[in-house]
């Protein structure tokens, strides 16, 4: 059960960061968000 709670939270946080990433205009901040997103997306895909 905890596994699914974790996955839902991670999916929600990923969604929020994607929205912020698309809104962000400074490329340096976009890179920072992309680095976080890469890990989150790989984790959601069970690759990391």
């Amino acid at each position, binding site marked *: 059960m905890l*596994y699914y709670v974790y996955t839902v939270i991670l999916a929600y946080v990923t969604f929020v960061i994607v929205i912020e990433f698309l809104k962000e205009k400074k*490329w340096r901040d*976009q*890179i920072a968000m992309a680095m976080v997103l*890469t890990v989150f997306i790989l984790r959601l*895909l069970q690759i990391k």
Partner: protein
Amino acid sequence: MFRRHLSTIIILAVMAVAGVISSIDFCKMHQPEELFPSPYLTKVGMLSDYFDGIKGTNGDTEVYLFDSGVDGGTALVGGGTHANEAAAFLAPVVMLENIKVTHGRVFIIPRLNNSGFTCTDPMEGFPDHYEIKTDNGIRKFRLGSRVTNPLHQWPDPLVFSQYPSNQQLSGFETRNLNRAYPGRPDGSLTEKVAYAIVQLINKENVNIAFDLHESSPEVPIVNVIVYNEKYEDIAMGAILGLEMADLQFSPETSPKNFHGLSHREWGDYTKTIPFLMETSNPSMGRLRGETNVELVLRGYSENYKQAKESGALRIAYREESGEPIEHRVGRHIMGFIELINSYNMYYPEMSIIIENLPDYNLIMEKGVGKFLNN
């Protein structure tokens, strides 16, 4: 509009490329290396044949059977309980690729905890594979984790309550196969794998079973044969035989109150005679320094040399030659041979006779690669 999103598109593209490249590399860890059994192999089954609750999971693994067709006893050799212990995996592989059984049957499971081979231990800096040169080329082997992959069993509890003893251990140990016996069919993946192994032992009437391990040179339980107290005579007989071959093994009785370990629970929950053997692996110790393939295979560490020479610690480490993979694999195979010989003396009507396994001196002289097929 396009200019405004240009940096977003570029960063997304770079992120996607980096993600795909690293994913391909990462996913390779889930592909087990090919093994080449000796021509005397009778059957390859799966562990899930004994408990279908692990079918299709990363806990399922190959079970190799060598059946002589002649009445006798049944042995089980298991390696890879802890996938970061290279010699404890390579020794069963060498057995698998050379063994001939002339009386009784031998089951070999090189990857008892298959899931552990799909990742490495975080923060330890271990290489994820090593290579061994053979007569026909190079064989690549995975070096994995001590425990089940957290992708396959998550999350860890803060405190692990061992089933059925209720012994309290660190949460991390919930993924340790050698704390999970006898296992349970509705437990975690690690407990299910443990349950499947116990089912195999019971259903196949395994008379004698081996669980091969390695440990840090500074750990007290190293270069030992651990035995369930009911079978002390067999262990002592083997240790005498090994002394004759100039190999020193310490006898260690399985602690009665330390639960979940193979030498304890296989002995208590099945009719098999269990033994666990440990060799000294400097790449696993706290003093090891840089952790690389050379340390895993050559087993030579200046830090351990200094520590041994200081006399401050009791360390199982040979100052001059280190603990090379040939020495560690050779010890496991000799331990197996002598324990089988000792067992045969006590149970002649259920004897197991094995041929074609290289002895310690031969492995030291020619190297492990000489006894690997490809």
